[in-house]
């Protein structure tokens, strides 16, 4: 059993990457849902985006045989950078206004 598992691990294929990306995605979602610090939430989002990237590249390599997936991955990396830049700017602005980056404490806008 263990032998088989090691055997399986040593021959990476599409499934390996999908499992990794699935795990990353779950971690990302978990971080977004449980963390209250805005920076940590943003890190969770990065995880989700990178999980998607792994998928794109893995499918491109093993599945479709086209390079489209890898191109998309490059775009997504750029996108993630742009998003992070803006998000951090906003977080900075929040910190100046509220002196905290805890999303739970931002509740001026309520019903």
């Amino acid at each position, binding site marked *: 059993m263990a032998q088989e598992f090691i055997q399986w691990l040593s021959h990476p294929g599409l499934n390996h990457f999908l499992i990794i990306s699935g795990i990353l995605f779950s971690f990302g979602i978990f971080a977004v849902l449980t963390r209250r610090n805005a920076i940590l939430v943003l890190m969770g989002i990065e995880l989700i985006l990178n999980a998607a990237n792994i998928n*794109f590249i893995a499918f491109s390599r093993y599945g479709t045989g086209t390079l489209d997936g890898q*191109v*998309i991955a490059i775009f997504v990396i750029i996108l993630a950078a742009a998003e992070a830049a803006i*998000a951090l700017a906003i977080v900075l*602005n929040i910190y100046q206004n509220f002196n905290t980056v805890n*999303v739970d404490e*931002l509740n001026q*806008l309520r019903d």
Partner: protein
Amino acid sequence: MVEQLLQSLSRFLPETTLTVALCSTVVVSLFLGRKSQATLFVALAGLVLATWFSFDQMGVSETIFSGMVAVDPFSVFFKLLVGLSAILILLFSLYSSEVQSTLHRAGEYSALILAMALGMFLMAGASNLLMMVLAIELTSLSSYILAGYTREASDSSEASLKYIIYGAVSTGVMLYGISILYGLTGATDFYGINRALTEESVNSVALLVSIIMILVGFGYKISAVPFHFWTPDVYEGAPITITAFLSVASKAAGFALMMRFFKVSFIDANAVGLPTGVWTSLQGFEWNKIVAILSVLTMTLGNLVAVWQNNLKRLLAYSSIAHAGYMLMGVVVLSDKGLAAVLIYFMVYLFMNLGAFYVVMLVANKTGSEDIDSYKGLGHRSPLVSVAMVIFFISLAGLPPTAGFIGKLFLFAALLDATWIWLAVVGALNSVVSLYYYVRVVRNMFLRDPEGNAEPILFSTPQLAIVMLLLLPTLFFGLFYSPMVELANASVMMFGIR
């Protein structure tokens, strides 16, 4: 190759214009210095030109840049809609105290509006998964900043943080869904996906998961329940002009993309013997049931929560959620009838919703408050604007003889024709609930006496002219709706769909 690129570029004129205008606003704001409305006018000119160029594209039907973007009547329609609302928003901005008090950053403001409009133009035409993501992101990134535009106000920055977190998560989830869809079909453009789905059968569970994940992204963009949490906060916190823009244009672009994605990717091109405009889904994949449930949730929650709101901007936010729910009813059908109903609804929605927001802005400029309580006795203080507001509200509630009624009429018609009767009944009951909260505002304006200050509120002639510009179509299209229906009829055509 080069020839093809040049050909594509000539079809890309509206977007190019917007880009040029975007650069010009930045340059102009550098040279003309601060404290000037010049950039607003540059942006306005750019938008008018871009809208004109889109208008010129009417009747064209092709894809450009090797299938990245479709230029077809459907996308032209949404470009016109987005262009028109952006023009109106810039006109609003000329009279918005929030924008005018931060005039030193007007360059930033107009450049971002243009960027957002550019993103929406691309969303209207995107027919490739990559283009779809990029267009959504361009729109979203600009709107995150605009939501927090009044940097000094803490409300505004809170709004933008909430906006970016929800936005980024849902685009992330959407991207993950897209990656699965890419893996399943091996294609990135909608037509390729359709081809792949037609030719081979794919794992239906994986397909379902990926579609639901993609729906999260769309749901966020059009603020459908349960992806709506950002909407009330952002709408309340953002400057009113931006709120109005988000509620109309951003939603329209989201719908355009969503409808194109579903219709093109899942149409059963081999289904024979169906009359024109009728549409069946591939492999019996009933995604429209999911959309129907979303639609019911969206309108019901939007309407019920709106009843409890005391801030008018927040009320309108929930009302716009409810309207997204109504329009989703059209997406459920997605035959040409359903599609046309959504297009008609958007035309109507443009005038009535922007009208309502504009009045809120005018009143907030004068009274400094968006509370429903501050509207007490407004009918006596400013009769003309109040009457206009009543008409916008009546239209939003969907009563004749206003255009809002025509929008609802065609939606219900599309539903009944496709025998989604229970959904039509839910929609109809919802519009009764919606009347209740619209009338609460009307009640304060006319049935209550002003509290404290009862001085008449006067508005300048151009301000009233803009009210009229929005009011007249709201009434006119309620009685003579042929132009609207004809335009929608001409615009349901998407490239590659018979």
